[in-house]
């Protein structure tokens, strides 16, 4: 027996050359009281031989299905505790994995610290993209043991500002509370994220920046001046390289300083810090450019680094591997199962990421804090076209909604009244305590938050809140009816109260249809519709847009009426009268969209009826089932009322090419879009939209003519739909197959 066990130990040693002596038993794991650990391995081995293939030794109540869910040890996908190189962070440090200083040779020390800074930037960008802190930034051993760094000023100040920056971003994303991305982003458990003294990160940075600045100045001074400045110790010992290294260090320090300032300024309440944030953003971008320029110098001195990656997508500017990083040391801090494998962004991609982030943040800072709700919606929709990432979107949301107020300064009730063109009276404030109005305020705030999330999450949430908006409309309607029934006198107060309710009711409907519209078009952005479904989508878009146009028009008419009443004392000029009688440009723009949607619906319907293409057939479900699946949330909220699959079918069943009506839709859209150019001459975004509408209308008109004239004669003509002119209105492309 003893022979066996000693053989066993030897076998282990030879089998596992990597590991040092592996003890068979560890005295730290005690057996029970008055019990011992008995070796059963040979018993198990001999029992194995007696088993049949597929036979298991198990007890009663054994559940094979449950057994399948067991974590497999030593499988990298299931076992997060596999020992790679080091058993613990402390062992790694004792082994010299993260030396302080990084080298006794000052040149190597500086070069390696720059590599650490660069790799941390790559880790940070990877984290922002949606991975966990533990696997990215905190794969840095220097950050895992912050008490070690104070002796090295440059390293310490950099680590401190990294921690402070991370905290600022985590607090912003947590406060925005969108929970849209995986929660990995904000999980900080077990990580040394907050240290005493972190609040002084800027002063630490200033000190070290000052020192390196003087070192740079000293090395550039002509030799006769050097005597006076000789008492300044250089950054590193190779005089030829001093300027290059000083510059490389300085721009990195300055970038971090300005970036931290950006984050602090953005969080100042009521958007007070936006202008200052813009200045810091500009400085950040300048420093990033400088950082990029230092890459050549660092690459040419890569001999001072650890060892070269040899990779195109290196995670440092110099192409060297950084000292002091090990992503496996943290894997046990997460759940029993290991986190999914991630790839840290390359350094170049990380710099690009930060450049984009800064540009997105700048777009936020440029927002003039438009108090009109319509303006806010417009801004958010435009901003989302930049496809901003989580950090930028969180900051936008925090700017828009603070303390239940728009920009932290305009009470939501006031915003709603202004948006709904409610006539101003001093006694309005009693109404806002009404339960329904309070609820409406909450819905508006929720809507703003939803609009700041990513497209997929946004669409899901928009679909869900449709019912809430429907319900609030019903509640407000009931409240209005109650007021009307209860009021016996026709006092001015009651009249105005009713007017308020009516305006608000209309506005609520308008917003509901706007939400439905956005829900539908996000489906195009997310590529959720197949071409065979375009017909029903455009049809639904058409019915929703008609309602939206109605509500919008009503609001604008009643608001000009109110305005007229106010300005009764002023003389009405001819121009004013003319403008009053015409349709507002915003409604006309919507009309263009309506025409495009109508035209596309009928064109595709005609293609189905006459050419048999774009049929919604499939082995799994019928067209009606697909209709229900796509529009379930809208149907459930009765948006619009009395609309069903059969309405769609009736509308499209008899669509044919020889009907001129179809052609006119595109012509009309084109004509109106041209006329609207003058109305929106100041608005670049609107002008672009009009251009796109014209292009879609023109191309579709041409395609329609082509198909209607030649389609039946030439069966080789095939029509497909592309989104090359407009993100959600398709253009028909006719080709010979």
């Amino acid at each position, binding site marked *: *027996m003893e022979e066996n066990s000693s053989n*066993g130990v030897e076998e*282990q040693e030879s*089998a*596992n050359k990597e*590991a*040092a*002596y*592996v003890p*068979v*038993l*560890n*005295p*730290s*794991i005690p*057996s*029970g009281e*008055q*019990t*011992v*650990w*008995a*070796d*059963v*391995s*040979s*018993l*198990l081995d*001999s*029992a*194995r031989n*007696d*088993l*049949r*293939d*597929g*036979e*298991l*030794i*198990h*007890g009663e109540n*054994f559940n094979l299905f*449950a*057994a399948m869910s*067991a*974590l*497999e*040890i*030593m499988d990298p996908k299931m076992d997060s*505790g*596999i*020992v790679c190189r*080091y*058993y*613990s962070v*402390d*062992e790694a440090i*004792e082994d010299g994995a993260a030396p302080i200083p990084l080298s006794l040779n000052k040149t190597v020390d500086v070069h390696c610290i720059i590599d650490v800074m660069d790799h941390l930037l790559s880790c940070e960008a990877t984290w922002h993209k949606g991975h966990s802190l533990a696997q990215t930034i905190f794969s840095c051993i220097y950050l895992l043991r912050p008490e070690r760094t104070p002796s090295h000023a440059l390293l310490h100040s950099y680590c401190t500002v990294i921690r402070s920056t991370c905290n600022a971003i985590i607090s912003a994303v947590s406060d925005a509370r969108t929970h849209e991305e995986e929660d990995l982003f904000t999980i900080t458990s077990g990580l040394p994220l907050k240290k005493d003294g972190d609040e002084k990160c800027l002063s630490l940075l200033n000190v070290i920046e000052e020192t390196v600045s003087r070192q740079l100045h000293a090395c550039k001074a002509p030799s006769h001046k050097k005597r006076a400045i000789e008492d300044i110790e250089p950054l590193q010992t190779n005089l030829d390289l001093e300027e290059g290294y000083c510059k490389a260090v300085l721009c990195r320090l300055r970038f971090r300083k300005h970036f931290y300032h950006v984050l602090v300024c953005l969080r100042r309440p009521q958007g007070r810090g936006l202008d200052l944030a813009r200045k810091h953003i500009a400085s950040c971008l300048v420093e990033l450019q400088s950082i990029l320029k230092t890459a050549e110098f660092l690459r040419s001195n890569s001999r001072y680094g650890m060892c070269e990656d040899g990779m195109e997508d290196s995670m440092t500017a110099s192409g060297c591997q950084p000292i002091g990083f090990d992503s496996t040391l943290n894997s*046990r801090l997460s759940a*029993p199962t290991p986190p999914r494998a991630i790839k840290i962004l390359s350094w170049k991609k990380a710099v690009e990421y930060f450049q984009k982030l800064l540009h997105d943040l700048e777009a936020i800072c440029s927002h003039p804090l438009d108090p009109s709700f319509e303006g806010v919606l417009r801004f958010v929709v435009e901003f989302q076209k930049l496809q901003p990432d989580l950090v930028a979107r969180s900051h936008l949301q925090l700017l828009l909604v603070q303390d239940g107020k728009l920009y932290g300064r305009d009470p939501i009730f006031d915003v709603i009244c202004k948006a709904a063109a409610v006539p101003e009276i001093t006694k309005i404030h009693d109404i806002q305590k009404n339960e329904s109005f309070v609820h409406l305020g909450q819905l508006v705030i929720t809507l703003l938050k939803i609009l700041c999330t990513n497209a997929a999450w946004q669409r899901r949430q928009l679909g869900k809140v449709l019912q809430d908006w429907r319900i609030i409309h019903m509640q407000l309607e009931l409240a209005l009816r109650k007021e009307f029934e209860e009021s016996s006198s026709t006092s001015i107060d009651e009249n105005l109260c009713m007017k308020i309710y009516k305006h608000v009711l209309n506005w609520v409907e308008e917003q509901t249809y706007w939400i439905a519209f956005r829900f539908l078009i996000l489906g195009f952005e997310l590529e959720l519709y197949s071409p065979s479904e375009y017909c029903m989508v455009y049809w639904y878009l058409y019915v929703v847009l008609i309602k939206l146009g109605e509500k919008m028009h009503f609001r604008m008419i009643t608001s000009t009426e109110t305005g007229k009443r106010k300005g009764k004392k002023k003389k009405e000029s001819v121009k004013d009268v003319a403008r009053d009688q015409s349709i507002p440009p915003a409604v006309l723009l919507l009309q263009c969209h309506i025409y495009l949607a109508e035209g596309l619906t009928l064109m595709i319907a005609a293609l189905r009826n006459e050419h048999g293409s774009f049929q919604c057939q499939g082995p799994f479900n019928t067209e009606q089932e697909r209709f229900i699946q796509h529009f379930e949330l809208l149907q459930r909220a009765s948006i619009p009322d009395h609309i069903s699959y059969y309405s769609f079918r009736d509308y499209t069943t008899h669509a044919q090419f020889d009907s001129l009506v179809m052609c006119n839709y595109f012509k009309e859209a084109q004509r109106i879009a041209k006329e609207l150019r003058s109305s929106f001459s100041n608005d670049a975004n609107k002008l672009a939209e009009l251009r796109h509408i014209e292009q879609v209308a023109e191309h579709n008109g041409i395609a329609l003519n082509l198909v209607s004239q030649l389609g039946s004669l030439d069966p080789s003509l095939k029509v497909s739909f592309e989104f090359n002119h407009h993100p959600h209105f398709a253009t028909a492309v006719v080709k010979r197959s």
Partner: protein
Amino acid sequence: MENAMQAPDQTSIGDNKSKISHVKKLLFRRMLVGVNDGRFFMGAFYCMDKQGNIILQDAVEYRSTRRSSPSPMEQRGLGLILIPSSCRTSCHVDCSIDEQLSLLSLQVQK
């Protein structure tokens, strides 16, 4: 022949059935399994197959903080785990001294 088959397990020598039934007696007992990267897993013995893969229930992972012993151990709970025989380096069961003696005698007899 029948008598021999019905004889109690302790007295039968080299009987195929008894090896498996001895192992069956170990089911749900505290088992300590060592793996080749130096970690230990302690849990209730739940299942074993012909390849020698072992499943432990309510398992706890023990890991030394230094490669060289002695050193403090870290532990964490993992639940139901499967330890492939290929990485298993040791296997012990918590038992009384009497039991350990009988287990020893069992293994000598093969």
